[in-house]
């Protein structure tokens, strides 16, 4: 007896509730942007500049005490947060202390870090250790933001071009719309739960883009094949057929990937938890958007039906690489 995530033959009409699903996606995107604008992202020092100190204490101490220990140092904005992880020992209490970039200091001041460490050792726990100290100057953080934005735009652009060359421009618009959907929803959930947003999150965003496009492309590939096979059937039906045929694969792959990621999320330690969470979330919304966003956009734009000839006019470069199989 085989494990089947979906029955052998499915015949779902993925457009039956198109208004609801597509509408939900749009609402979710708008909500994400609204939360992002109102609450804002919880940027890490990579983008804000400043210093993060990870402290490892042997006694449980209220976060307020950390705060009062550091009060006298005139550090500006200080964020203190407890870290929990199943891998920690019983008497291991980890806290991260984040301070903003100090006024008018381009480089990093070791004196500040030393002052913080001394204050915590004196007032909180004399056996405290500092497993990691990271500082980023404001000059670098500004550049990192810029690089991050370029990275996201460059990958979207590259995919737009690649899908356009391999399929049709409508497909690439649909694929990129799905990707933007995924990226915005991820930013939304990071704003909502105030998960730290740093360079690793950008890497996660790009991975989501890569994963989601993977899913979308598999469906598109089948769609193209079926469009050639069933020249007379309505586009909507061919799309449904393609989505149903690939549904088992879509869910299998998402399933195995999600399984692996959940293991990492639970057991992989707190250092990369945010990173893994972003990717896991991306796998979920990415799978959804491949089925419910990308196709809908292509359906709205329409697509040529005669695949025996190269496309005309505007899409001159449309399918010239469509048969490249290497």
């Amino acid at each position, binding site marked *: 007896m*085989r*494990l089947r995530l979906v029955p*052998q033959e499915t015949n779902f009409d993925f457009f039956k509730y198109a208004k609801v699903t597509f509408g939900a996606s749009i609402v979710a995107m708008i909500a994400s942007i609204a939360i992002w604008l109102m609450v804002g992202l919880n940027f890490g020092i990579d983008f804000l500049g400043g210093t993060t100190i990870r402290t490892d204490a042997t006694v449980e101490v209220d976060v307020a005490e950390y705060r009062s220990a550091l009060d006298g140092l005139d550090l500006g904005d200080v964020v203190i947060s407890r870290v929990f992880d199943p*891998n920690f020992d019983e008497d291991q209490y980890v806290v991260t202390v984040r301070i903003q970039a100090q006024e008018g200091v381009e*480089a*990093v001041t*070791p004196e500040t*870090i030393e002052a913080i460490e001394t204050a915590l050792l004196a007032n909180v726990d004399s056996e405290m*250790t*500092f*497993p*990691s*100290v990271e*500082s*980023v*100057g404001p*000059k*670098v953080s500004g550049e990192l933001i810029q690089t991050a934005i*370029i*990275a996201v735009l*460059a*990958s979207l652009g*590259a995919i737009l071009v*690649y*899908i356009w060359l391999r399929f049709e421009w409508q497909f690439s618009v649909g694929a990129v719309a799905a990707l933007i959907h995924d990226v915005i929803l991820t930013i939304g959930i990071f704003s909502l739960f105030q998960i730290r947003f740093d*360079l*690793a999150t*950008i*890497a996660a965003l*790009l*991975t989501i883009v*890569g*994963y989601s*496009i*993977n*899913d979308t*492309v*598999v469906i598109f*590939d*089948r769609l193209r*094949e079926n469009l050639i096979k069933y020249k007379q059937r309505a586009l909507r039906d061919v799309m449904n057929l393609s989505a149903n045929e*690939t549904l*088992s*694969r879509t869910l*299998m*792959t998402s399933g*195995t*990937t999600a*399984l*692996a*990621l959940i*293991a*990492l999320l639970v*057991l*992989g*330690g707190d*250092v*990369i938890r945010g*990173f893994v969470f972003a990717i896991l979330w991306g796998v979920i919304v990415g799978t959804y958007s491949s089925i419910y966003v990308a196709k809908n956009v292509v359906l709205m734009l329409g697509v040529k039906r005669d695949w025996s000839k190269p496309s005309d006019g505007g899409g001159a470069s449309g399918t010239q690489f469509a048969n490249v*199989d290497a």
Partner: protein
Amino acid sequence: MLQIPLWNRLFILLVLLAGLTFAFPNFFYERVERHNDAVAEMEREGIETDELLAEQALWPDALPATLVNLGLDLRGGAHLLAEVQVEDVYVARMDALWPEVRDALREVRDTVGTIRRIDADPGLLQVRISQPEGMSAAVAAVRELGQPVVSLTGGIGESTLDVSGSGDILTVRLSEAEQQATNDRTMQQSIEIVRRRVDEAGTREPTIQRQGQDRILIQVPGIGSAQELKDLIGTTARLTFHPVVGRAGSADEQVESRQIVLPSIDPDDQGTFYILEQTPVVTGDDLVDSQPSFDQQSGLPVVTFRFNPTGARAFGEYTAANVGAPFAIVLDEEVISAPVIRQAITGGAGQISGNFTVESSTELAILLRAGALPAEMTFLEERTIGPELGADSIEAGQIAALVAFAAVLVFMILSYGTFGIFASIALVLNVGMIFGVLSLIGATLTLPGIAGIVLTIGMAVDANVLVFERIREELKTARGPARAIELGYERALSAIIDANITTFIIATILFVLGSGPVRGFSVTLGIGIVTSVFTAIYVTRLLIIFWFERRRPKTIEV
């Protein structure tokens, strides 16, 4: 039909075997690492001690000893991003140029009149001439001093100097091309000296890279803190020996031209300032060796040094001519000590005594051996990761990877039966291949890199899933199982290729734009894509063919 030529089969098996061979030493990470360290040390030092030989014997020489480098976040260590103040060098160049400019203008004194250097922005040399009508002659004379730029990147034939005159002021600066060439030289020198200093300190596998125009990325595994690293590489360490003119009460004391006032850092001598001749007798450039040591009489830590022949001669001549006079040993604009010359020092060797501890004398000796930095550095980014945190991360990553692995295997076997077993074998081989390639190219594994591998475990089965689903479909229509398998592979190929190329594009972008851990992630992701396509398309296919040829099943269930 369902066939792969024999030489293709051999090739696939050979690639697999090679990948696994290079991955294999990673199972014995610590032993192999100690072996490698011992071998490297024996090669470097040219000596074989019993201890080193014992370490070497931990791993047989005949076996490959390739290892994955562990990133800073896994091994612990310090990371610094330094910005070299390349403009410092322009200032030094202009100062050095001034005597030449002065001499050149004196030769045309009749047309330009008297000259005087005036204060200008850093990197500029400005001269006021008393006869503005002679400006064109002055500009021409100074331009003569320029030389064609020597550089690999364009600007060939351009002059090193950019000379202009306005009113009665003549301005000299380095030309754009020369600035570029100077920057490149400064960066190369800085990197070289940083590397020497880090190497002198004896740390393992440091990463020292130029980033962008004027930055250096320095990563040193195993060092206690970024501060320690900064102490080692952050000081310019320019050592000079100057004749002492006298003492001064404050730093602002008026002195004659070509004289400088510098503070003393000797605590016995606190608040003292020395008036020194600006031109040093000898500089640290002429040092060939420097070691920490102890003074034979007082037993206090000192730093010994030895000059090269040029330095030894200059130092010998000066000390012979000035017995009884004090001279100052200056490090980075501070006087370490100002002893009186008791006798001529002709051997070219000497010692610096100051207020040293054993640590500070060792540090200074390292700095002096490695040479001075051409320009100052400021630090834009620094990260210290403790070794325990790294070890915890590795452990957590390993457990998570194993659990992920097991879960995916069970899931695949439940879903695809026999074929699921083939896919599982391919998956195990795939992870082996990833480690093999990582070890072979000496890539660095970071914590996000481990996440990349776990993600690959999840995604690697995708290609197999595509093929198996396709085979299921083809079974409904195709003539016999062999044909279905063949068609399954054939028709799934285009989707596999498209899906993986797009992910590979992302990995490439991450690699180009990312740094540190993110780059580590892109490397494992990219390698994972290549190896998973290889194992999914070739290895499982080969496994299925082997199985099919033995069993010759009439029907198959996928």
